[in-house]
């Protein structure tokens, strides 16, 4: 029953977040009421759940999500989770209250509260998820929402940079964490937390322990801002102060140590764990405490102190002893209380004084005595002054550092380092208080400071009270709760510990005293320096983590990436084609090289026919010639390509493929004309001008030439092998040959295949043709020729000028004379070509021919008329609407195919019969004929559309040119 409340704990904040996002911009109070209410409800739920938790019960709530992959929406709450849940909701409530007064009325608060609630939900999710993957999900969600919260004031560059940096670092950590958790799942066979917690030994003994540990530490340390990933936290201080108070004291950064504690039972206790974690924790503890002293920004100081305190917790966890773990858990709690209150205090100071720069702030005590007092108590807790909660956990820490953990240098320097760090923390705490509240009255403040609204102070008051109460009577206040938390983590290993304030005079106490006096002395020494120094730690001031991060990000993600992109990629076409060809060559010939069996290359010359050989001699010469001429003599290359095409066509005839030969020939004619039409728009290419042969170009040519020869050779071999290999006994062709006439109703098997057996191919093929025609049309509508080919061709200019020079001639007469006789002939041929098309169309089913050939013939007939009479003349006489043909063709083909549905047959089922018509005899009629008619219509339309669209460019460019020259004349 209680377990369903767990779901509520998650759902409430997220629902609230959505509602908050939808509220109007100025609904500051509503937002605050909503968020506060939600936090309060969640807090009450948590409190309500305590009795069952205290009995050691573990609440579970499970919803199946992806059970196959063991990813379920499992919620689980034990004592430790409960404690964190209290922090999340309790401090969350206080922060909302504080934020209500902190945020300016002009701020678009819906976004703020929405993100804040969502963040709270995500944090709550981390705390109570019972499935490792679910935990990772919430983990990343906290990164995302913290990014959004830090970047809340995104008009501020610092906020953007800080947000980005925190997101990139914690996000990366999260991805690593996910990998680590998946590996844990791999090792333990489950992602379920309970199951994982039960298999600690399996994990520690596994070969993958080190990678798992590294990945999980990466996740946790980045999140908790531990050295060397600490630098994002100070930059995240660009966030609004409530965000800092919530995220950077109590929740977000705590997630890392939370996870470490959660997995402490299964991961800790090894040497690697101690060394890695201890190093990171110690470095953070010491360095950040030192850095904190030199910060001039209040929040910067607090940020570094946070890193330092988290370092303390990390160090404690690294020890692997149960007592240290207790101390760690205790310190998490304590740190949350005093740090949150300090952040809020800093926010108040900032709010009231208008600056957070400690060089400008001083003597504020007289303006805001209550706030000052509160801040003083909180910082005393931070410094570890007795009778405050900070002292207790720090004392535990000191005593733990004395223990023996592993045989290493780290171990022996631990107590000293801890003491020094303690001294530093005293120094920065004193500095915080002394600089801000004491000393002369401030002079350069933007506004007159005074006490904040008292509801804004309430959260601080509450937290400071907590510090005091816990610090004075720990056993009665926090004791039982801490115990619940500790036992849930440590289980049977829970040690005996005491939360007493006074343990007698022992080494930890001496260490504490040393730290307190040392810290105070250090402050006295540094005081004057600090009052005017630059922001940042001397010596490493130049070395800013942020700058380093940005630089390395730029280098890594930009310079190197660009370099790699250029090195391993290309934008040029030639290398791309080269690679494609090369790879196909390698892949295609690999099987031959890999197998031992050499393919029999029995050169049988006896069947070689002299005529055929000579024919291909011609073909080869043409192909080589075309390859040679294509650069400088385009027309020659085109002509030679025609020659090669002709040889191909003859080859088709030779080997019994009349249909192919006809189609090949017709297509070749149209292609030639098309290319000729295009040739006019290409630039002049002159051998003498750009025949530059650099060494690189030369090498490239040799390389290409080699590849071309290799591929040619390979293809020749491949072709020879397959042509001479045994003929298959059984192919689908047999079926076609046998059924073409009886069932397809046609004798020309190729045509029956095209319109019936594999009519669907033809269907697709004509669609391609149609699409291309449309594209060509669309493209040419926007066509603009290059300036140097815009003018009318030179020939026409000369001929027109000639006509102009002779008064008895009219302009254009040369061309008229030129075309007069051919035009007459071509016009008279036209009906015969139409006849030929009809002939080829009608006989296609039985003899070579068919819709495609007929269509092209018709298109060529039209083309001839264009050639003879010119576009304008033809279009004034003959209205052909190519688009009309295309759509009719497509529809006719489709409808013919669909006709079969009427009879309950699949698409394209054909029906053929032989009609007895008087006088005409039997005439084969097949529905495929209509399909073929569709093909014909489309082919005519598409071919004509392409040719005509291209031909129209000449007229258009003349027109453009004319209008432009007219324009220039007007300007004169």
């Amino acid at each position, binding site marked *: 029953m209680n377990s369903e409340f767990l779901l509520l704990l998650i759902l409430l904040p997220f629902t609230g977040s959505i509602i908050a996002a939808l509220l109007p911009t100025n609904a500051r109070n509503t937002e605050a009421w909503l968020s506060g209410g939600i936090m309060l409800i969640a807090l009450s739920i948590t409190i309500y759940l305590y009795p069952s938790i205290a009995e050691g019960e573990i609440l579970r709530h499970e919803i199946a999500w992806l059970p196959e992959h063991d990813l379920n929406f499992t919620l689980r709450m034990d004592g430790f989770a409960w404690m964190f849940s209290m922090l999340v909701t309790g401090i969350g409530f206080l922060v909302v209250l504080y934020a209500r007064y902190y945020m300016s009325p002009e701020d678009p608060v819906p976004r703020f509260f929405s993100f804040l609630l969502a963040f709270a939900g995500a944090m709550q999710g981390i705390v109570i998820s019972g499935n490792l993957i679910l935990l990772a999900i919430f983990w990343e969600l906290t990164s995302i929402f913290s990014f959004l919260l830090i970047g809340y004031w995104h008009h501020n560059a610092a906020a953007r940079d800080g947000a980005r940096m925190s997101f990139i670092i914690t996000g990366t950590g999260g991805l690593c964490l996910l990998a680590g958790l998946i590996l844990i799942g791999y090792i333990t066979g489950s992602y379920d937390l309970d199951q994982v917690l039960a298999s600690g030994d399996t994990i520690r003994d596994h070969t993958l322990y080190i990678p798992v540990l590294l990945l999980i530490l990466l996740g946790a340390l980045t999140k908790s801002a531990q050295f060397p990933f600490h630098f994002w936290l100070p930059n995240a201080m660009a966030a609004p102060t409530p965000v800092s108070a919530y995220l950077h004291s109590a929740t977000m950064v705590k997630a890392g140590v939370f996870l470490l504690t959660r997995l402490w039972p299964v991961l800790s206790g090894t040497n690697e764990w101690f060394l890695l974690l201890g190093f990171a924790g110690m470095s953070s503890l010491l360095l950040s405490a030192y850095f904190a002293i030199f910060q001039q920004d209040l929040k910067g100081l607090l940020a570094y102190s946070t890193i330092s305190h988290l370092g303390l917790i990390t160090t404690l966890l690294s020890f692997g002893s149960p007592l240290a773990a207790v101390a760690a858990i205790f310190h998490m709690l304590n740190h949350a209380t005093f740090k949150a209150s300090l952040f809020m205090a800093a926010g108040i100071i900032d709010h009231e004084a208008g600056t957070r720069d400690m060089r400008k702030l001083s003597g504020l005590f007289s303006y805001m005595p209550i706030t000052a007092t509160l801040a003083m108590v909180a910082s005393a807790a931070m410094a570890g002054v007795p009778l405050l909660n900070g002292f207790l956990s720090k004392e535990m820490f000191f005593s733990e550092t004395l223990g023996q953990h592993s045989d290493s240098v780290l171990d022996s320097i631990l107590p000293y380092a801890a003491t020094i760090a303690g001294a530093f923390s005293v120094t920065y705490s004193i500095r915080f208080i002394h600089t801000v509240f004491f000393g002369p009255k401030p002079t350069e403040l933007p506004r007159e400071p005074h006490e904040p609204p008292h509801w804004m102070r309430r959260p601080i008051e509450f937290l400071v009270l907590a510090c005091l109460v816990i610090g004075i009577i720990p056993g009665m206040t926090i004791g039982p709760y801490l115990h619940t938390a500790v036992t849930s983590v440590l289980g049977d290993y829970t040690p005996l510990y005491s939360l007493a304030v006074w343990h007698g005079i022992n080494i930890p106490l001496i260490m504490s005293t040393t730290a307190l006096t040392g810290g105070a002395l250090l402050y006295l020494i540094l005081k004057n320096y600090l009052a005017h120094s630059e922001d940042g730690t001397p010596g490493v001031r130049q070395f800013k983590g942020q700058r380093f991060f940005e630089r390395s990000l730029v280098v890594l993600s930009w310079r190197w990436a660009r370099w790699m992109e250029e090195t391993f990629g290309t934008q040029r076409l030639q290398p791309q084609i080269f690679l494609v060809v090369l790879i196909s060559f390698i892949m295609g010939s690999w099987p031959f090289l890999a197998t031992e069996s050499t393919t029999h290359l029995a050169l049988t010359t006896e069947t070689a026919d002299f005529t055929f050989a000579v024919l291909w001699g*011609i073909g080869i010469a043409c192909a080589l010639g075309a390859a040679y001429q294509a650069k400088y003599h385009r027309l020659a290359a085109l*002509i*030679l390509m*025609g020659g090669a095409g002709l040889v191909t*066509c003859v080859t088709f*005839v030779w080997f019994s493929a009349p249909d192919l030969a006809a189609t090949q*020939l017709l297509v070749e004619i149209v292609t030639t004309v098309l290319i000729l039409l295009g040739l006019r728009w290409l630039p002049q290419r002159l051998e003498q001008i750009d025949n530059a042969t650099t060494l690189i170009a030369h090498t490239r040519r040799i390389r290409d030439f080699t590849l071309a020869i290799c591929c040619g050779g390979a293809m020749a071999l491949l072709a020879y092998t397959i042509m001479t290999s045994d003929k298959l006994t059984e192919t689908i062709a047999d079926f076609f040959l046998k059924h073409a006439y009886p069932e397809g109703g046609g004798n020309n098997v190729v045509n029956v295949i095209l319109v019936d057996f594999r009519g669907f191919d033809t269907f697709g093929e004509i669609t391609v043709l149609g699409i291309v025609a449309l594209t060509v049309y669309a493209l040419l509508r926007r066509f603009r020729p290059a300036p140097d080919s815009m003018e009318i061709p030179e020939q026409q200019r000369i001929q027109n000028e000639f006509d102009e020079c002779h008064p008895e001639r009219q302009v254009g007469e040369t061309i008229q004379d030129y075309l007069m006789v051919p035009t007459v002939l071509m016009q008279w041929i036209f009906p015969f070509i139409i006849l030929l098309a009809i002939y080829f169309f009608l006989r296609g089913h039985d003899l*070579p021919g068919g819709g495609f050939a007929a269509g092209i013939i018709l298109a060529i007939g039209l083309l*001839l008329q264009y050639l003879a009479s*010119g576009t304008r003349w033809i279009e004034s006489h003959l209205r052909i609407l190519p688009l009309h043909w295309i759509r009719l063709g497509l529809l006719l083909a489709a409808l013919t195919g669909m006709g079969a549905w009427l009879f309950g047959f699949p698409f394209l089922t054909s029906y053929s019969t032989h009609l007895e018509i008087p006088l005409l005899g039997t005439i084969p009629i097949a529905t495929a004929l209509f399909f073929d008619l569709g093909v014909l219509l489309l082919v005519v339309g598409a071919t004509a559309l392409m040719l005509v669209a291209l031909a129209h460019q000449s007229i258009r460019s003349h027109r453009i040119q004319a209008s432009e020259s007219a324009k220039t004349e007007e300007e004169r």
Partner: protein
Amino acid sequence: MSTTILLGAITVAQIILVIAMIFATIPMLRGPHAQDRILGLDTLYSNAMLLMLVFGLRTSNVLYFEIALIIGALGFVSTVALAKFLMRGEVIE
């Protein structure tokens, strides 16, 4: 007897025609002017057409006539287009 004569004649005719095709190809390759190349292509086309007619005789199959017919009726189109390109600089005005 007559078969041998006929076959011989056909073979000879084929060889002669294909040699004629070689002669037609040479101007295509050699030039020197575009018009020479075009003329070569035109001749190559008509030679190929004749070759196909003869091939039809050889296989005694009427089917190949259609190819010859297409070359005969439409093969000139490329030549016409090429010629007009030379004369006017563009094919369709």
